[in-house]
């Protein structure tokens, strides 16, 4: 790869973001610990009957993963804007949307993949039947990148404001409703032995659309955020 070419630029940016995340691996562990602790609260709060827990397990895991992702989203572009790296990315020869997509990919790898790894453990703590586990993982593999992409657009939109954490949550959570409905719907169908492909296909369609549109929207929003 010649330096300055598009693949080299994507690889360099991905590598930098993954290296930075690794140097601060304590931050990667936070959302995972958060998810584990919140999950353990549920049996204490609503009682340990296996039938009840199994019924709510899927929904609870999806909502907890969603909130854990929300926790980490705020840092997505903030560091780059504050230390001047964003100017470097914006003046680069590559389209900003592509570079932003790489940053979102790196963020998904560092924030969501660990959650997907622990999600089956969390679900089995809540007595989710083992035969529903593959559907849980498939639904998470499709819904977490979708949430990261939707969240990234909103992070870019709120990047200009100082304390954007709560504003981000208020704006993102309504957009997550369809994602949660389809993901939890697929899992509920699998638990009852019904076909679960249709909601998964809807998640896939949403992800395909977000993959194309979200980086473009992000790039446009970041340019507005820098124009202050």
């Amino acid at each position, binding site marked *: 790869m010649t330096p300055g070419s598009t693949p080299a630029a994507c690889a360099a940016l991905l590598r930098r973001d993954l290296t930075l995340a690794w140097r601060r691996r304590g931050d990667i562990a936070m959302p995972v610990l958060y998810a584990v602790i919140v999950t353990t609260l549920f049996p204490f709060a609503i009682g340990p009957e296996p039938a009840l827990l199994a019924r709510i397990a899927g929904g609870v895991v999806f909502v907890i993963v969603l909130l854990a992702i929300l926790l980490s989203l705020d840092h997505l572009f903030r560091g780059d804007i504050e230390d001047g790296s964003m100017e470097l990315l914006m*003046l680069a020869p590559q389209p900003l949307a592509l570079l932003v997509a790489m940053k979102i990919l790196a963020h998904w790898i560092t924030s969501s993949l660990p959650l997907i790894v622990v999600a089956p453990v969390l679900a089995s703590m809540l007595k989710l039947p083992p035969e529903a586990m593959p559907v849980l993982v498939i639904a998470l593999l499709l819904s977490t990148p979708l949430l990261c992409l939707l969240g990234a657009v909103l992070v870019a939109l709120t990047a200009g404001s100082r304390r954007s954490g709560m504003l981000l949550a208020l704006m993102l959570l309504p957009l997550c409703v369809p994602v949660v409905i389809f993901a939890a719907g697929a899992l509920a169908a699998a638990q009852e032995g019904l076909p679960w492909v249709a909601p998964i296909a809807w998640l896939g369609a949403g992800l395909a659309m977000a993959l194309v549109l979200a980086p473009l929207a992000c790039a446009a929003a970041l340019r507005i955020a820098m124009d202050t």
Partner: protein
Amino acid sequence: MTSPPDHTALLEARALCFLRQDEPVFGPIDFALRGGEIALVEGDNGSGKTTLMRVLTGMLRPGEGEVLLDGAPFSLDTVAGAVVFLGHHLGLKFDMTPRENLRLAAGLYGVRSGTDENAVLREVGLAGYEDEPVRQLSAGQKKRAALARLLLLPARVWLLDEPYANLDRDGIALVNRLLDQHAARGGAALVTSHGAVSFAGGEPRRIRLHA
């Protein structure tokens, strides 16, 4: 210093001004920078030097007037790595080493032929610090790590906002030497400063901003 034969300016501003809440921050100003030319933007604190720089990078939309790069209207979509900007925020990741920071810039912009990461880090006086996290470097050394990026990238236009801040006497001489080399290669540079600056190679063009 000799200007190249062609007369298209590398970077040109025409009646450029910037408004904040309908109050002009600077301008209207006109200037044209040809290859091999270095211009110094002077002005007191608050006279709009940094704002001018950000308008020239395309981050801020000018109120009126236009910026031309190589005779074509400048936009972030067409800049194609021809411009590199060094501002108050150095664009360095403090958790990474100078070498790693350069690697990202090189991946994005490519590398000027005939140089590499080690050579530019030696040139700016960071030999021996290549693999220390930037966090542990002094303010002046951080600045030098950012200056190394200018040397490594093939960009023809340098926009330097207060490049002399935090630098010792040697560092100031280093910036002047880098600017001279850049001009000799046919590049153009716009430098802001609020203090008195003397370039090694003769008197630079001066663009004065009034508060």
